[in-house]
């Protein structure tokens, strides 16, 4: 029984990997970008847990910039993905323009709150 569940997990993992290999390249670039942002956020949370939350506004600003970046990148991925029926009529340039504008606003806010 243990062997079969081990085999099942491995089979699941293999199928996930092969399915993911089939995604288009630009979506994989966005996924990498999101992973980078979330990783940076986790580093900051671990640092705060060790050192304490002294300049709390700086902590919030740093974490928010990472999370905000990740959220905007996920939105871009949803809108650019060709398999997504909902945004079939949305031109990818429009999605990219929205992404850039929102990021500008996000970074303006972050710079002000950083202290």
């Amino acid at each position, binding site marked *: 029984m243990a062997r079969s569940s081990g085999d099942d997990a491995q089979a699941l993992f293999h199928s996930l990997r092969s399915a993911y290999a089939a995604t288009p*390249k*630009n979506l994989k*670039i*966005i996924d990498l*970008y999101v992973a*980078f*942002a979330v990783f*940076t*956020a986790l*580093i*900051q949370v671990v*640092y705060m847990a060790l*050192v304490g939350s*002294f*300049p709390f506004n*700086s*902590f919030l*600003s*740093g*974490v928010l*910039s*990472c999370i905000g*970046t990740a959220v905007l*990148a996920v939105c*871009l991925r949803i809108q650019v993905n060709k398999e997504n029926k909902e945004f079939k009529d949305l031109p990818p340039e429009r999605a*990219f323009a929205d992404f*850039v504008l929102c*990021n500008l606003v996000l*970074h303006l806010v*972050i*710079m002000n709150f*950083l*202290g």
Partner: protein
Amino acid sequence: MAMATATARSAVLLLALISFLLLLPFLAAALSVDSPKGRRVLVLLDDLATKSSHSLYFRSLQSRGYDLDFKLADDPKIGLQRYGQYLYDGLILFCPATERFGGSLDQAAILDFVDSGHDLIIAADASASDLIREIATECGVDFDEDPLAVVVDHIGYAVSDTEGDHTLIAADDFIDSSVILGDKKIEAPVLFQGIGHSLNPSNNLVLKVLAASPSAYSANPKSKLSNPPSLTGSAISLVSVVQARNNARVLITGSLSLFSNRLFRSSVQKAGSSTRHEKAGNEQFLTEISKWIFHERGHLKAVNVKHNLVGEADEPAMYRITDDLEYSVEIYEWSGSSWEPYVSDDVQVQFYMMSPYVLKTLSTDKKGVYSTSFKVPDVYGVFQFKLEYQRLGYTSLSLSKQIPVRPFRHNEYERFIPAAYPYYGAAFSMMAGFFLFTFAHLYNK
């Protein structure tokens, strides 16, 4: 013509005389030193024979510059003050048998005299009246309630040919203080004959200067003891001093003959010891303690409290947290004729707000200036520089200067907080990542 010159000359003379008289007080002020206490002392006696039988003691006071005014205790003309001003700076009561004082003097007047900062010496005796006992009680000292009791010591008495009932005792249990009793050790015991008193142990203003030996007790020597005496041993104080909170000093003792010429000149040998001293320690003891009572020793003054930021000269109105500041004060001691710098290594200053945040010992330059420097604590509020100094035999110093401490202004913080560098780094790395991502997204195949 001649008459005109004569009137002119007399007018010039008159003018010179008037200007000299006007300048005289300034001359006098320039010659006198500002002693903390005056020199006029009123001495009240039961009868004028005391003036001659205690002349050695009075002469020792007069030779140090005191102006003694001898009066009988029931003289109707005595008064301590006139029109609100005190006529005397010190009072000596050598009148143990007086029931009522004459003139305007009474127990309340004497206590007001002490409350206004003047010094007092009270000598009671075996025939002490209620008035004297009550004055002593108000000063913090309780004489034995039995009016016939005297201090008797069958082991520490003074060996003599005449007195056989052991009421003349030789006491040598002195307080250990060179401020009160002088630098020279008193070698010979002090001869004492009179009543004893006890001190309340919770009273911290009164000091036992000469205590009776553990074998002494207070009882009537002529009658048999029916129950154990209430005052025994070292709890009996023969000579006590009180330093009030306003630094007035009071000496209370139960023997008028302690001050007498007879005991000053007599030789003393304590029973049980083989040494016979040629002269009893009474004169040295009383001279030194009178110096202390009349503030010739142990009187401190603190002047010139200064505080400023390190490197600046003037006192700011307010400090900021984590400022470096320095504090200095000058303390002098009256030596009997001039103010000498006080040298000690245990003067401390507190930076106090509800509790001392900083407590530092001041260092002295031996010329009277005490100074220290410290960092203002990281707490803001209204602080005080408090200097509390109470040592045995010295006047108490209590100085306090208030100063507010403010927090940082918004532009006095550090611009970039080192603890937040990772957050700065993360935010900027996100911006750089976004920039690079746009190229990657637009130009990938």
